């Protein structure tokens, strides 16, 4: 059915084109009379039909989008299917690459539990396609892998999952539930928790006589950096991110540690706060005292400075872990991870940086079956073990994030194995313990990525020495308010 309809139509269409081309070629001969010359008329009439149908489609389209719009305001709640052995086909979009392959491998396990659900698993350029697909309602998938930062922008098109998630919600990291909650509805099945950690080059630090494990606050980190620099004058021990996007993401990790974020639950800006002042002042101090290496995340410069021992502290999300495993071949094994320093002694030792969830578009045909797929993947031991545990793609397990479902994130029951590149360290324990400290969050505003043009860039200007922390705050607040919040 999928192939035959379009195919026959396509063949007919092809035939028309070919006939026209042949007709036209038949007219090539010179000396033919005038009437032949005007004969390509069929071309005209045929094309005219095309444009006719297009013109009529104009009104049809307008009417067909309108009801879609009306539905949107209802905020439907997805219900789980009730039959014993539900059947049907679901279309699931994932980003290409390692996660696609990891998820793909879980489908077999899923089918052991639900043999009659066929999973059509596609690798899709989600950023390029999702918005257009949802707005136009064309070929809408049943489930999509999506950045947490994007959910706010799409919630009008998504199922409210409050009901189906109710049995699990108390066992999900609160930060992840919060970022998915918009106006009381939960619009995504939380996937991973990405706790911020302090990665450090233990070997290099030990040679300089610095014991990173004693670091408890960001002031301690500054002291450790000063100590390291005293023996390595060329070094810039702390990473300073030069990509405006990732710099803003890292800023939000620091803020998450303090339980705040760019916007509150109502979407009001709250940059102008002592918390942001404190974070930016820390970054500005690193710059001012020349304690940092400014580079874009894993650019050639960044990698070289990590390898030569100039850059030894990397406060970043857990997903930095792949760098020592794959890219830092000279210093692999020298790296370790620990909880982030606290902003005040005794404060939370981690914040969230990035993360994704699964969303279910309301125009999907079998959304309730897609829910079963994600329920299996995230909340069934067979599912989450297949994702994070050793698999074909990652023989020692997927160690660039941890589950947001707390029963799966038990520090004493690791899903992935200790990491050789971290000197055999049990990253699982470090990350899950850090993850447990992440304060609750707020939904990311739909304009979050747009704010990079303002906040992200202003942070970079501060690191250039052109703005001070309070200028970053006041300027970014004004610009974001005018160009993003007020334009909603």
């Amino acid at each position, binding site marked *: 059915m999928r192939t035959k309809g379009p195919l026959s139509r396509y063949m007919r269409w092809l035939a028309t084109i070919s006939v026209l081309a042949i007709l036209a070629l038949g007219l090539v001969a010179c000396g033919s009379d005038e009437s032949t010359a005007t004969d390509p008329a069929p*071309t005209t009439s045929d*094309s005219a039909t095309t*444009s006719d149908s297009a013109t009529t489609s*104009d009104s049809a389209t307008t009417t067909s989008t309108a009801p879609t719009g009306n539905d*949107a305001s209802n905020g439907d709640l997805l219900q789980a299917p009730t039959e014993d052995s539900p059947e049907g086909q679901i279309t699931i979009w994932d980003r290409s690459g390692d996660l696609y392959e990891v998820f793909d491998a879980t489908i077999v396990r899923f089918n052991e539990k639900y043999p009659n659900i066929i999973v059509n698993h596609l690798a899709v350029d989600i950023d390029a396609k999702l*918005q257009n697909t949802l*707005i136009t309602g064309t070929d809408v998938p049943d489930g999509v892998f999506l950045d947490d930062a994007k959910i706010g922008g799409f919630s009008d098109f998504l199922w409210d999952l409050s009901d189906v998630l109710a049995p699990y919600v108390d066992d999900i990291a609160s930060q992840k539930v919060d970022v998915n909650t918009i106006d009381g509805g939960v619009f995504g099945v939380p996937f991973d928790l990405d706790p911020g950690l302090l990665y450090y080059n233990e070997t290099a630090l030990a040679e300089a006589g610095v014991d990173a494990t004693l670091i408890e606050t960001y002031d301690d980190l500054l002291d450790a950096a000063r100590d390291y620099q005293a023996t390595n004058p060329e070094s810039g021990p702390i990473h300073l991110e030069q990509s405006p996007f990732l710099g803003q993401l890292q800023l939000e990790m620091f803020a998450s540690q303090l339980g705040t974020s760019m916007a509150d639950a109502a979407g009001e800006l709250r940059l102008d706060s002592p918390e942001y002042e404190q974070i930016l002042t820390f970054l500005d101090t690193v710059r001012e005292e020349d304690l940092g290496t400014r580079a874009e995340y894993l650019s050639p*410069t960044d990698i070289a400075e990590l390898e030569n021992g100039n850059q030894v502290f990397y406060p970043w999300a857990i997903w930095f872990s792949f760098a020592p495993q794959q890219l830092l071949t000279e210093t692999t094994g020298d790296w370790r991870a620990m909880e982030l320093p606290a902003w005040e002694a005794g404060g939370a030792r981690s914040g969230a940086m990035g993360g994704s969830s699964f969303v279910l578009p309301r125009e999907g045909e079998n959304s309730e079956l897609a829910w079963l797929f994600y329920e299996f993947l995230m909340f069934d031991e067979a599912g989450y073990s297949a994702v994070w545990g050793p698999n074909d793609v990652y023989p020692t397990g997927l160690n660039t994030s941890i589950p947001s479902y707390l029963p799966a994130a038990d520090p004493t029951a690791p899903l992935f194995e200790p990491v050789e590149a971290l000197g055999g360290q049990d990253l699982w324990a470090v990350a899950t313990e850090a993850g447990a400290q992440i304060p609750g969050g707020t939904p990311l505003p739909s304009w979050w990525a747009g704010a990079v043009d303002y906040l992200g860039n202003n942070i*970079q200007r501060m690191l250039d020495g052109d703005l001070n922390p309070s200028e970053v705050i006041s300027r970014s607040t004004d610009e974001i308010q005018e160009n*993003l919040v007020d334009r909603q």
Partner: protein
Amino acid sequence: MARPRAAPYVFVAPFVAIFLAFSVYPLVFTARLSLTNWRGVGDPMWVGWDNYAYLLTNDRFWSSLWNSAVLWVLIVPVQLVVGVIVAVLLNSAKLQLRGMYRVAFIVPFVMPLVAVAQIWVVLFDEGYGAVNSLLGSVGLPNVGWLTTGTWAKPTLALLFLWKTTGFIVIIMLSGLQSIDSVLYESASLDGASWSRQLRSITVPLIRRTIMFVVVLQTLAVFQMFAEPFVVTQGGPYSSTTTAGYFLYNHINRADLGTGAANSLLLVVLVMALSLMFVRMLRVEDGS
């Protein structure tokens, strides 16, 4: 000489049909959208000229135009000069390796842009890139090609030049076809130097082609989107946020009304620029 009246209509009809179906309809839709605040869901709300007023009073809109204008200055003149010279050289029948050159200059145009993005980062990385290594070997300081507002535009312009100059050479080559080689032969018999031939025969005779290229590249530079999107994401400090990229930003945030208004403003602008160039062409034709 009397010509049949129907023939030209028949010739342009297929284009008109496709144009009506796939350009006029979206254009009308866009024009309507530009007067609303539609975000892709629900009924569009009429906001009149608000989107236009917002854009026309917005610094960033103007700086996106400014960025494109600077890129235009960096790209189009260079491309014209290099394009004409290379085309003239490649047009010469006695040039050795002519076929190889013709193929080589078009290769960048075929290189998928997503791969180009990777290449550019490696070439222009500040600390360890190939270009700075080269500069360093002759004692020049490192340049923040992709990290400073000053240098990012020239770096992006270089990418665009690298990628599209081969395209322009092909168009120029076709223009050169209309020049009778006898003209050159008699000129060189008269002892006219190569550069003189270039100035007094080649350039005047392919002036229409040159103007065509100017109009074409003006459109391309102001619509430029994919290059900054994959290489610089409009940065650093929005210095490579071109008019085309700025427009994408609205649409990407589902601010479809503002995006539509922005694109119509852009159409008006490039139309005005094109008309200006076409007029310049006509004036020269007349003289």
